[in-house]
């Protein structure tokens, strides 16, 4: 039986989102902003996705002892050059990898964040085959525990 849920994961979503949104360096590289799941009309942005499954472990009192979820975080930039997306992915990495430790988000406290799988691919723009869409970032594992 899964342990009793003690927090709202959307608080952690918001923490990740605002961390990326509020960074001036990343905003300079991806000026259209940060989006969840899909970004229609944007050409230089950060895209966040959280796969639905999570790992958890119960504490002795039957509540969550810890919880681990994955976030896919990537820069998506319409460009035939990989330079900007490389730089944006590096900045995402600086912000998240081993970052936010002990930060509280609602009833959760971040224990550990690390990159688990790099993301790197490109798509050809159908309206101009010389133009590409660069996708560059990583999947990050975020481990958290109850704040109190």
């Amino acid at each position: 039986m899964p342990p009793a849920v003690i927090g709202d994961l959307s608080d952690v979503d918001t923490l990740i989102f605002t961390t990326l949104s509020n960074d001036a360096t990343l905003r300079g590289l991806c000026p259209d902003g940060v989006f969840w799941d899909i970004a229609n009309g944007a050409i230089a942005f950060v895209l966040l996705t959280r796969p639905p499954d999570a790992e958890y472990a119960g504490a002795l009192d039957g509540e969550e002892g810890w919880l681990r979820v994955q976030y896919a975080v990537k820069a998506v930039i319409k460009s035939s050059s990989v330079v900007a997306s490389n730089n944006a992915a590096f900045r995402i990495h600086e912000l998240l990898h081993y970052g936010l430790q002990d930060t509280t988000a609602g009833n959760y406290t971040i224990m550990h964040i690390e990159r688990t799988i790099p993301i790197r691919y490109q798509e050809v723009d159908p309206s101009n085959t010389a133009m590409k869409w660069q996708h560059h970032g990583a999947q990050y594992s975020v481990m958290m525990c109850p704040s109190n």
Partner: protein
Amino acid sequence: MANKLTIGGLGEWLELPRELRAAADPVIKRYAEDARADVKAAYPRISGALQDGVVFVETPSNDPAITTYTVKSTAPHAAPYEWGSQVHGMRAHPTFLPITNRARHAATAAVIEIVRAAGFRVTGDTD
């Protein structure tokens, strides 16, 4: 008195990795084969390229302590399907990674039990 020291039983220790690998190999293979089947079943069938692109690779090793099976998604659009396509306005469909991640964790747990059954204590991060 002879100046000689004999340490016995090393042959048993040297054989241990082979025995553990022999016990773990079919377990790991089963999890990998199941993961391949689960990924194929979870992918949609439109052109068939996604499903047909899921392959299972056996990687032989001469190291007596290593056994490796790999599941790959080789379709050209496997990455855009998993993480989203801007060109097609398609959101991410996390499929391959969650399934293979669960299989990897389950296989690791099963191997740990095999090692424990052989009399060893297992500690540390299993990721």
